């Protein structure tokens, strides 16, 4: 299909052309809609059907809700849910608090070389999964890892970051925090800069101290942005895949097995597409549920 251009100087589109004034907007959205239908809408519905089947190709057979029954009775699924929830509850608040403090610092006029620090803290969030994963897997090594070397300067004994269930979780939290704190800080920074200066000036005239100004002006003004980052980070963490995939592979002892990782394992290691699709739908339900709950809280 070709778009026929009207010759310059003509007011109307040639009559027989496919491109009529009425059609133009539809032609413009057509590529996007095609992509949406083939690679989003259809797969979402197909996954729904696949989740009700077992086997693949010609051997695929309809089994109703069997996969979902299996899911509810699968201890590994509950483990993955528990791990994901644990990382969510620990990592997101730490990260967002650090990001807020960082943004306040980066916004302070007392600080020298602000531009440079801003540049640096944003860099980790641009790293690709493999670069970041390889980097961390080496940094976190028990012997001769960079982090353990750094800790040894303070007299701390080497920690088996990726080899013990407890530390492996901490390692994932550290990696996530390293990767995304700067990103959130930059979002907060933009929010801080959009708060009208005269609000602060008026408060100073009224004799409000810096703590008072923070709680009475900064936090309320930043509220929508704070909420946005909470929602985005929650949704992102619920789908956590990259870090455990590269760093721990879900181990040791499934302590870092996340829902997405479990989905991947069932789908592309065991080729159990029906079960993987059921996990995907459970994940969707959780993500959408959290999203709606957090949006509701914002309205209040």
């Amino acid at each position, binding site marked *: 299909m070709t778009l026929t251009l009207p010759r310059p100087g003509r007011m109307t589109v040639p009559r027989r052309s496919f491109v009529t004034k009425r059609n133009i907007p539809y032609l413009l959205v057509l590529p996007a*809609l095609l992509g949406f239908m083939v690679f989003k809408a259809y797969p979402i519905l197909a996954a729904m059907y696949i989740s009700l089947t077992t086997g693949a190709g010609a051997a695929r057979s309809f089994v109703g809700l069997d996969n979902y029954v299996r899911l509810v009775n699968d201890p590994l699924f509950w483990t993955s849910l528990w791990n994901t929830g644990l990382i969510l509850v620990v990592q997101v608040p730490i990260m967002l608090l650090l990001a807020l403090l960082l943004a306040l610092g980066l916004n302070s006029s007392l600080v020298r070389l602000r531009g440079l620090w801003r540049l640096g803290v944003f860099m980790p969030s641009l790293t690709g999964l493999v670069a970041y994963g390889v980097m961390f897997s080496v940094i976190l090594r028990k012997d001769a890892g960079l982090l353990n070397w750094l800790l040894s300067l303070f007299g701390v004994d080497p920690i088996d970051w990726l080899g013990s269930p407890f530390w492996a979780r901490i390692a994932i939290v550290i990696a996530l925090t390293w990767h995304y704190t700067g990103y959130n800080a930059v979002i907060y920074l933009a929010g801080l800069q959009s708060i009208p200066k005269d609000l602060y000036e008026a408060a100073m005239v009224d004799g409000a101290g810096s703590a008072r100004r923070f709680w009475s002006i900064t936090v309320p003004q930043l509220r929508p942005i704070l909420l946005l980052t909470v929602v985005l980070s929650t949704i992102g963490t619920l789908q956590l895949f990259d870090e455990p995939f590269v760093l721990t592979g879900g181990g040791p002892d499934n302590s870092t097995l996340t829902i997405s990782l479990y989905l991947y394992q069932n789908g592309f290691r065991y080729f159990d597409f029906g079960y993987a699709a059921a996990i995907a739908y459970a994940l969707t339900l959780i993500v959408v549920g959290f999203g709606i709950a957090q949006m509701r809280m914002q309205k209040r």
Partner: protein
Amino acid sequence: MKGWTLTFVLAAVFGLCVGPFYWLAMAATHANSDIFSWPPRFYPGDQLAANTAKLEESIGLVNVLGNTLFVAVAQTAGAIVVSLLAGYAFAKFQFAGRNLFFVLLLSTLVIPGGVTIIPIFEMMNDIGLIDSFPALILPSLSVPFGIFLMRQSLLAIPDELLDAARVDGAGELRVLWRVVIPVMRPVLAALAVFLFLGAWNDFLWPLIALRTPEMYTLPVALATLQGLARTDFGQVMVGTAISSLPMMVLFLILQKQFISGLLAGATKG
């Protein structure tokens, strides 16, 4: 005094953020055995050429870089065109179904990628596209975030500007090319950088969709390298440094656009 304390704290945070990159670059110039020396080596070594040669031998560095660049450019260019056209329609035209289409396109932002990956894999498998570049490029052409960003920015362009061109007899594509694109250049640049980095770093889908090592993109090739029983980290570090390089360069050149693009609503992960 207080300002200096704060500056010091921020410099320390900066070190934590950028330090690993520095160490990575240094590690790329040392032999495997020296990378894990204690204390770590924070100075350049003389093994960069040797590590690079080994990397070329094990993954075909040049070929893999070519694949990655081709796929990333094609994805970026395609998604930009699709986003711009759709964003233009949503911002500047009235048509039946406009709001419905827009909401539908955006609604997929909240759907976890895991849901679509299995059907897309089966689809690609059925039509014989597994292990081909179209399998990597096609699914990423319709980007809800890009469409949203384009629509938002186009809403800010006054209709009078477009109408003036139309009165002068320009067709819609001409208006788009001569009026809209020049005005939109900074936003297009921001989107291009985002899409390019996303495509350049893409891992999971290429890992699933590619089979033969000759087709691999850099992240997939590096991951297979790391999975070997006895990893030679010298070459892994070179590859990792190379894969981080475009990001650094693009970011340094385009930081302003970057951050405005980010604020338009990019998502985590």
